[in-house]
């Protein structure tokens, strides 16, 4: 049935798609390219790649020597990874319970848990700050992790429930007949099968954690606890006239995300289009 499209139509489709692709990546390329150039070249020929004499790492040297880039990066890493682990663990456990052990009230509980998908946790910031101060967690990474786990759980539970429903019943029933305890069924039979869902959960709950500005701005006050997003934002405020440093700081924030994204894009995108939100 296919392959009847005229050549001209194919050409038109590809020109639209590649034009938009260029629009999507040119700004990112522009920042990355110019971060490796000397100041003169940044302004004289912004569209040229860094070659020979125009190549320079002066911006990176400046960023790495003045800003606490290492600390910020480690903080972001720590917060994101621990939050991700807890969101996936608690989320999968809850999703399993909600789909497997149905009693009166589980539907209500599911609705209660889904409030957080639509109502942003940011609106509770005033009370969150008061609470963290009272708990003595103000200006700690633990405060960020607690808030991010609470923020990520509703969406994670929603996505993971869809995945768990697709797992064939026989698998768990067979294990039950063999007398395997419930906790082992979850951790050894079900949890490994959820691996494909991790990508989808990551896009919807983990990426926003890495990228967040609001909670680090509100809950962390010292440089010791800043994350990379907040660090870059503040660094740029201070060095706005130093174009080399500014471009290098932006690139340092962009590069890890781009590299991880390109490496895992196949899984990420198939996860997004397969079982995500229908």
């Amino acid at each position, binding site marked *: 049935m296919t392959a009847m499209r005229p050549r001209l139509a194919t050409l038109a489709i590809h020109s639209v798609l590649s034009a938009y692709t260029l629009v999507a990546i040119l700004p*990112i390329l522009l920042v990355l390219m110019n971060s490796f150039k000397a100041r003169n070249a940044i302004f004289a020929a912004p569209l040229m790649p860094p070659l020979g004499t125009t190549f320079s790492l002066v911006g990176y040297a400046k960023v790495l020597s003045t800003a606490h880039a290492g600390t910020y990066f480690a903080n972001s890493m720590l917060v994101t990874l621990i939050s991700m682990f807890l969101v996936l663990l608690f989320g999968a456990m809850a999703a399993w319970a909600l789909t497997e052990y149905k*009693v009166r009230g589980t539907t209500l509980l599911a609705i209660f848990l889904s409030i957080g998908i639509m109502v942003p946790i940011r609106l*509770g910031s005033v009370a969150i700050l008061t609470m963290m101060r009272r708990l003595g967690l103000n200006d700690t990474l633990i405060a960020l992790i607690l808030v991010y786990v609470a923020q990520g759980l509703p969406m994670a539970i929603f996505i993971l429930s869809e995945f768990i429903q697709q797992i064939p019943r026989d698998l768990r029933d067979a294990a039950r007949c063999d007398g395997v305890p419930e906790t082992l069924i979850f951790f050894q039979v079900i949890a490994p099968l959820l691996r494909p869902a991790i990508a989808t959960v990551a896009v919807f709950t983990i*990426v926003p954690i890495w990228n967040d500005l609001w909670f680090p701005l*509100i809950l962390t006050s010292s440089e010791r606890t800043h994350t990379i997003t907040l660090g870059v934002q503040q660094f740029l405020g201070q060095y706005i006239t130093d174009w080399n440093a500014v471009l290098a700081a932006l690139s340092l924030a962009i590069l890890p995300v781009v590299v991880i994204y390109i490496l895992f894009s196949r899984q990420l995108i198939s996860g997004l289009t397969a079982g995500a939100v229908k």
Partner: protein
Amino acid sequence: MTPASAAVPSMPKMRLVAMLGLFLGPAVAVYTLFSIYPLIATMALALYTTGPDGEYHFVGLDNFRLLLGDRDWFGPFWNALRNNALFFAVHMLVQNPIGIALAALLSLPDIAFRSTYRTLIFLPTMLSVVIVGLAWNLILSPLWGVASGLLKVFGLGFLFAPWLGLEWSALPTLALISVWQFVGIPLMLIYAALLNIPEDLVNAARVDGLGQFRIFLHVKLPLILPTIGLVSILTFVGNFNAFDLVYSVKGALAGPNFATDILGTFFYRTFFGNQLQVGNPTMGATVATAMFFVILTGVCLYLLFVQRRMLRHTF
């Protein structure tokens, strides 16, 4: 309520409840303590004011009367709400149509490099709003001259203006930057919905002599309406909760002259204070509560009208 599994009903009720507690406990505890409780506590705080003694005093709905009735409060609030509505309108009119169009093209049969296009177009969505905002701030800066240089290549150099700095264009420009970043979300969700359409339907339409464009308009589009509804409500919630972009590009004062002030920045200024005012937790809580009701109204309208109409449409 029917048990999900054949083996579960044999489980004693007590054990079932114990399992529920064990598996649901951690998630429900963290979520309730750090998400639901702060929301309720914030709304409760909106009913108090800080007296001269530094203690909270109950004042009923006085804060809301102030926010909606006092000129010094209502002016900025209304300005932020209006700006936010414009911000949302740009997303609905630009982001979602572009997302639908790109998804329609990508889901056509036999498109070479399909996954390359998908991967690259989705890339900006993965980046931090802060980084994206700051990068565009540089690109659009008259100092660097990249944007004006590119326009000159097409003979359109006269069109260039420092868009982010001008009162009339700053907000639409920020909205378009956000559109540029998030077009990947409607693209992916609608692409997935298009792939789920049964092939028989499309083939039947083709046998009837419909071209690809009319197949999209008359067969596929009606079937993906629920997804478009979902994309719209996600856009709405995201937009009325936005903050990072305006804050990182224009600062807490959302300049020039509050032209880019949206509810998120207004909330931040009220709560934390800035060069012009001292932070006010109770009024901050009041603004947050007002934002909650704005978002709630949107979600309810979606659930009541959009989703119900769509259910009727599909069945």
